[in-house]
């Protein structure tokens, strides 16, 4: 019997493996991972590990300790070159071919970069190696760190750098941080929080390119022609799903791997985590979610879908949830709001830096974001899991 092949050993892939075993699958499983070892747990990489308050070895994925008992043939430093969905055959970069009985696509995503020549001092943040390289540059004590992109990663890195006592400029092309996903009023709160902690926040600013000397970055040139001097630049402008190996495979690609509501892409092929775009029946829309818990949940759903074989499988309906720690503030969000949704503030205020914002679109609540309000966010999430109706959320938070 051919093995089930899991491509990618991060949260989604290992969670799928776990679900296969939990679901009673006793056959062979091969896990292919491009990195030379188990990818670390990522949330601490922009926070505790970067700050030096957590040992890098402690940033372990939840299933790391259980990997042995999941009985998989895990192959490190193994890159898939190409794949054919019609017969489930994988060709590896080392020339080997692998026949699969089913495939879990969990290759994640890779950070977008600014392009241009490679300059020392310019960083992205995705892997433990990225984190340690950035950390080493911060240890030198740069006069200024410029963070390009005020999404959640950029904002966390800016906060960590400030806590290390470094001068920080945070650049964002949009009029407010997180403007792709949150209404501007909430983004403005984030900008104000960073300014209050001494970050030079510049919004609506385009980046023209990096300036360097002797192979090392010396500044960031802005769209208006001015240059900000910086010895370290962190680029946090989003990620692109890692689907290069699936080009021409017969697996439908759009914003990642295009899956149905059960996480199935084509017969025998499922996808999970950052790489997967699926139809979330709870919201009635297609989404690709780059979040920690989501990768675990969707990985499990994808594993179960493979086990359902030719049957219809279970829809994966979810209310996504994530957290972000910046300074002493804990942001948490449940749901999937859009920048154009109305933002209603409950349980506090922006001034107190402690509140819940519920996002409204017509008679629906599309999500809830809390700052230092974990209880309200989790209760809202439970209610949103039952229904996205606005009124019960309003009643809960009022």
């Amino acid at each position, binding site marked *: 019997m051919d093995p089930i092949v899991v491509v990618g050993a991060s949260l989604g892939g290992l969670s799928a493996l776990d679900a296969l075993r939990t679901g009673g699958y006793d056959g062979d499983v091969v896990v292919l991972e491009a990195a030379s070892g188990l990818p670390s747990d990522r*949330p601490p990489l922009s926070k505790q590990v970067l700050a030096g308050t957590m040992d890098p070895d402690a940033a372990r994925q*939840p299933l790391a300790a259980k990997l042995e008992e999941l009985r998989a043939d895990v192959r490190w430093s193994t890159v898939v070159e190409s794949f054919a969905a019609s017969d489930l055959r994988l060709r590896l970069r080392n020339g080997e071919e692998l026949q699969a009985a089913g495939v879990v696509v969990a290759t994640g995503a890779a950070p977008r970069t600014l392009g241009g020549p490679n300059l020392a001092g310019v960083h992205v943040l995705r892997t433990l190696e990225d984190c340690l390289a950035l950390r080493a540059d911060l240890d030198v004590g740069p006069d200024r760190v410029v963070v390009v992109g005020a999404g959640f990663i950029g904002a966390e890195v800016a906060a960590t750098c400030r806590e290390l006592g470094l001068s920080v400029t945070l650049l964002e092309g949009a009029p407010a941080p997180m403007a792709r996903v949150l209404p501007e009023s909430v983004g403005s709160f984030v900008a104000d929080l960073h300014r209050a902690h001494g970050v030079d926040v510049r919004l609506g600013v385009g980046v023209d390119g990096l300036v360097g000397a002797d192979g090392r970055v010396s500044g960031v040139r802005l769209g208006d022609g001015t240059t900000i001097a910086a010895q370290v630049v962190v680029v946090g402008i989003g990620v692109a799903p890692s689907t290069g190996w699936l080009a021409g495979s017969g697996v439908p690609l759009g914003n990642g791997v295009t899956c149905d509501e059960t996480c199935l892409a084509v017969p025998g092929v499922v996808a999970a985590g950052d790489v997967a775009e699926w139809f979330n029946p709870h919201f009635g829309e297609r989404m690709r979610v780059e979040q*920690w*818990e989501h990768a*675990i949940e969707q990985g499990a759903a994808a594993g179960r879908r493979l086990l359902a074989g030719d049957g219809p499988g279970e829809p994966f309906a979810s209310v996504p*949830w994530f*957290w972000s*720690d910046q300074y002493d503030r*804990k942001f*948490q969000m449940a749901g999937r709001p859009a920048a154009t949704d109305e933002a209603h503030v409950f349980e506090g205020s922006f001034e107190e830096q402690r509140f819940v914002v519920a996002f409204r679109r017509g008679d629906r609540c599309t999500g809830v974001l809390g700052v*230092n309000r*974990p*209880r309200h*966010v*989790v*209760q809202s*999430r*439970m209610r949103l899991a039952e229904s996205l109706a606005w009124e019960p959320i309003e009643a809960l938070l009022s």
Partner: protein
Amino acid sequence: MKIVVNFDLCESNAVCMGVAPEVFEVRDDDFLYVLQEEPPEDLREQVTEAARRCPKQAITVED
């Protein structure tokens, strides 16, 4: 079954409360309270799921 929370790791994300509200409660002071340190056996599945989903892996379920 005994619940052990490593409060050095716990960040009050309250995920556990969403999964097993009869056992875990994050209150307005932002701290996690374990409502039942030795919950009845019929809560085992919920409690195990809560431990699994904890972003800090701060919850241990001892037999």
